[in-house]
């Protein structure tokens, strides 16, 4: 059934403002004025930009994933580089952006792992500390890189954030199962008239954090070495309700983008 309706109306209002200025054709005097004005404006803008650095403390609450937990006891180690992660984005013509992500990192992983596994134990940050024998899997997430694109750089109306995590997966005796690289992405519209940049950066980062969690949930069964520790009766796609996941490729030498697998 196709329903169509249309209307044509004459309605314009003046609640938004957008000015475009064409260059003058013959105005050398005016040009000098404009040049002077431009120099002054640039100087003032530089001073203003220097004083307008955006500092974003990423904050959000993260839900537990809706899934049947894997029958595993996971030990999670949060290194200081993750809990205190901070990124400074510098630009010559835009205000500096400082993103403090440490607390949000831990909040996201806590909610995620508490929902993913039958039991989660937080380990100390010391990698040499003994791990309780009851633990099946040790996870040590690190945030290798954060990239941000502002509307001024990307030419879009969004702030965009990429997060590149590495999840080191190992057995409780320290045997490495593999390094699992997880890339996440988030975007958020900038505020109207370019205002609200901090909110947009926070929003884009939170979406990227949720994307990381979604990626970990949906691809966990194919993470490096995980198949070797999952109970034989656990068919990941039915038990955990996850999407069919891409098979992790063994990392080649110097490969910094793929997944690395070391199995014993």
């Amino acid at each position, binding site marked *: 059934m196709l329903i169509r309706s249309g209307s044509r109306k004459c309605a314009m209002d003046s609640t*938004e403002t957008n000015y475009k200025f064409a260059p003058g054709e013959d105005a050398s005097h005016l040009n000098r004025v404009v040049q002077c004005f431009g120099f002054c404006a640039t100087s003032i803008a530089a001073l203003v930009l220097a004083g307008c650095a955006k500092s974003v403390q990423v904050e959000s609450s993260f839900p537990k994933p809706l899934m049947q937990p894997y029958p595993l006891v996971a030990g999670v180690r949060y290194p200081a580089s993750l809990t205190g992660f901070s990124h400074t984005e510098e630009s010559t013509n835009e205000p500096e952006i400082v993103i403090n992500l440490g607390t949000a990192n831990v909040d996201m992983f806590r909610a995620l792992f508490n929902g993913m596994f039958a039991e989660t134990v937080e380990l100390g940050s010391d990698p040499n500390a003994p791990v309780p024998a009851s633990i099946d899997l040790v996870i040590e997430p690190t945030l290798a890189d954060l990239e941000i694109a502002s509307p001024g750089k990307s030419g879009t109306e969004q702030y965009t954030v990429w997060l590149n995590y590495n999840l080191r997966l190992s057995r409780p005796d320290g045997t490495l199962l593999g390094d699992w690289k997880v890339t996440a992405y988030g975007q958020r519209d900038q505020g109207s008239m370019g205002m609200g940049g901090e909110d947009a950066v926070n929003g884009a980062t939170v979406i990227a954090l949720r994307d990381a969690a979604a990626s970990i949930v949906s691809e966990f069964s194919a993470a490096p070495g995980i198949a070797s520790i999952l109970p034989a009766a656990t068919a990941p796609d039915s038990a955990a309700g996850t999407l069919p996941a891409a098979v992790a490729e063994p990392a080649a030498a110097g490969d910094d983008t793929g997944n690395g697998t070391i199995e014993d």
Partner: protein
Amino acid sequence: MRITATKVSACLAATIFLNGCMTSRIESTKDAATGLGTNESIVILSSSYHVAKPAEDAFIECVTENAQSGSKKLRVYPAAEFRDALFPWLEPRTVPAKAANLPEMLDRPGVQDAIKARNVRYIVWIQGATEESNNNGGLACAAGPTGGACFGLAWWDNLSSYEAAIWDLAGAADAGKVTTNVNGTSMIPALIVPVPFIARTRAAACKGMASQLQTFIAG
């Protein structure tokens, strides 16, 4: 002299105001019977960027607000709460790309219960954007010790084009779609004082889509 010029500017602006137009076109295609129970609600979300160009946050908020008003108002469940309740199955990476994949999502542990607990019957996915084109004319402004002035005329077109796909969670199927396209021309005439006349195509598209969604879902 200045008063005269201002008067001329005002007259010109008024003339252009009267001639400025927006054209809107709204279509809906229904693939299944629809209807909403007294306690049932819908949720309005932007499409995944893996599937289509998601509508702007402001557009989603506008449609959500307008769908909940008027004589045919709908009960709209908060989008963020719904995404959290079904996390992570409505994230851009994991959300079903098409209605045919809905059963796979609904079969996941806990998903059906979470939806039933909230009485959400339909998910409305909105994609699209408002774009500017055909920039013409220009303004020249000058300032001096005694004041400033602008002269010229600039105009451009705005096109707001959005599509809402409606998924029926009870039937695990596509219920249909609503599309809206609004064209408009904005202009700034300036005779000493620039007077902007902006065609608010996005606001018109929002109201048109919200109204059509109300009609579509009511059945």
